[in-house]
């Protein structure tokens, strides 16, 4: 096995020459792709506006302060609507996500060949469309207002909750299922006594986590007409009332911080 010392390279190298070459080609391709995309993207960019941006930013900043704090009381109803959209949307999503998750999990699905792909497709479709786009559709269908926001939040959250939940179901300890089955339990009883207790902490954590995300999302859903703080934001933006926009931003920031704190506390208590 021993080669002559002269045949070894002088310095330690991580890769072979061929490996290094391939790596460089890969990086080069990435840079080329980036430059190409940059060129295509900025075909229509008015660089005049971009150069002007610092002045615009200063101008915007001077308009946004001082915030018009007297606008705050008028925002309490939209804030309540926002919280409702997030909470009710999460609840609706939970109701829909549980059966989907059980249909999608490999160990509980009735048919791995037919039912599971359908459930997975539903999960992907729900996850790949943002809540704002769902809201855009639902405002057109069921009209502007809080109900459209609730359904939009729910449809977006179904995929998220179902995905994390079915992964949790697939990771359960099979011996407990076997033990409960051995007592002669029906399949509903197996789910109730062997699977549910194992996934309950993960499930509660997922729901609270999603609720936290939904608070953020429902704060802006009003931009497309679905009620809540976003609607007030849209109204203020339309009349260029920047001092009011500042108040709304501060309120959204505070709401998000509080919801994040609540969700962190609850998850800490559960797990």
């Amino acid at each position, binding site marked *: 096995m021993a080669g002559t010392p002269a045949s070894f390279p002088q310095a330690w190298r991580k890769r072979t020459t061929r490996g290094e070459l391939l790596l460089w080609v890969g990086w080069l391709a990435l840079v080329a792709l980036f430059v190409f995309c*940059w060129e295509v993207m900025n075909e*229509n960019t008015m660089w005049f506006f971009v150069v002007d941006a610092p002045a615009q930013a200063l101008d915007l900043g001077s308009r946004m302060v001082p915030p018009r704090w007297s606008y705050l009381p008028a925002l309490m109803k939209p804030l309540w609507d926002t919280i409702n959209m997030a909470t009710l949307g999460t609840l609706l999503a939970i109701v829909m996500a549980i059966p989907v998750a059980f249909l999608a999990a490999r160990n509980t699905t009735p048919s791995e060949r037919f039912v599971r792909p359908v459930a997975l497709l539903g999960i*992907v*479709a729900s996850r790949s469309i943002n809540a704002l*786009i769902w809201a*855009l559709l639902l405002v057109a269908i069921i009209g502007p207002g809080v*109900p459209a926001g609730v359904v939009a939040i729910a449809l977006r959250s179904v995929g998220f909750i179902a995905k994390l939940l079915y992964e949790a179901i697939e990771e359960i300890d099979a011996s407990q299922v076997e033990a409960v089955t051995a007592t002669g339990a029906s399949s509903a009883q197996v789910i109730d006594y062997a699977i549910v207790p194992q996934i309950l902490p993960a499930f509660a954590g997922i729901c609270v986590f999603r609720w936290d995300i939904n608070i953020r999302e429902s704060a802006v859903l009003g*931009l497309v007409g679905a009620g809540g703080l976003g609607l007030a934001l849209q109204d203020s933006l339309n009349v260029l009332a920047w001092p009011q926009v500042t108040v709304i931003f501060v309120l*959204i920031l505070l709401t998000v911080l509080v919801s994040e704190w609540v969700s962190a506390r609850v998850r800490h208590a559960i797990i």
Partner: protein
Amino acid sequence: MTTASPANRTVWRRPPFITDPRLRWAIYGGAVVYLILAFATIDVNWVRVYEGLDRGMRFVRGFLVPDFTSRWSDIAQGMQESLTMTVTSTVVGILISVPIGIGAARNIAPMPVYLFCRGIIALSRSFQEIIIAILFVAMFGFGPFAGFLTLSFATIGFLSKLLAEDIEDIDEAQAEAIRATGAGWWQVVNYGIQPQVMPRLIGLSLYRLDINFRESSVIGIVGAGGIGATLNTAMDRYEYDSAAAILIMIIIIVMIAEYSSSFIRKWVQ
């Protein structure tokens, strides 16, 4: 070992999820009161919903027979903007977030740098993309450049935070070994830390590419370019078949991105 007296229950009952009964009933009661209040303040206009069902049916029909052709040039333009915006913003976002992520790792950065970088991360994470897009559109004008800046900014918060946490979780022994050879700070980062976090960094970058595409389909609603603007226009014109075509394309691209990124991540790790 006590023997079971007849007074003891002989039927086993499972312990409740929340053990403290007072806390349990307080939570249940609070939930019921909240739900009553919440439903009382929502006014559903059932007449409007009933009228909307017809549109809903048209939308479902649009999904079954999507119309790719009549607005194809708009769709192609929007998709091109979305895809290029995704790639450029992800690359720029990664380039900026790597130094910030290193600076935000407590075990290799001095305190002032740590606080500064954590501040940037908190700033970037606290507002969602759409709000940042509103501000950037106001500053930089309409179009994909504002969207590109928005997504880059959002990428920084996401990637730097996870990278910093990953660096804080590394195996210290390897960094210690490199340090023991007399390596400087750069060499420790390059030889002791970078090899440990690289697979995860690549995985996170691909994941962020995924997220950026999804977000790029939304920020167009406030004028930051991309397929979202096309979708918004299609909805405003009641062209549900074109809107369905756009949504189907978004779903398919997201699915492709998700599968290929999970494939690459498996290959890297």
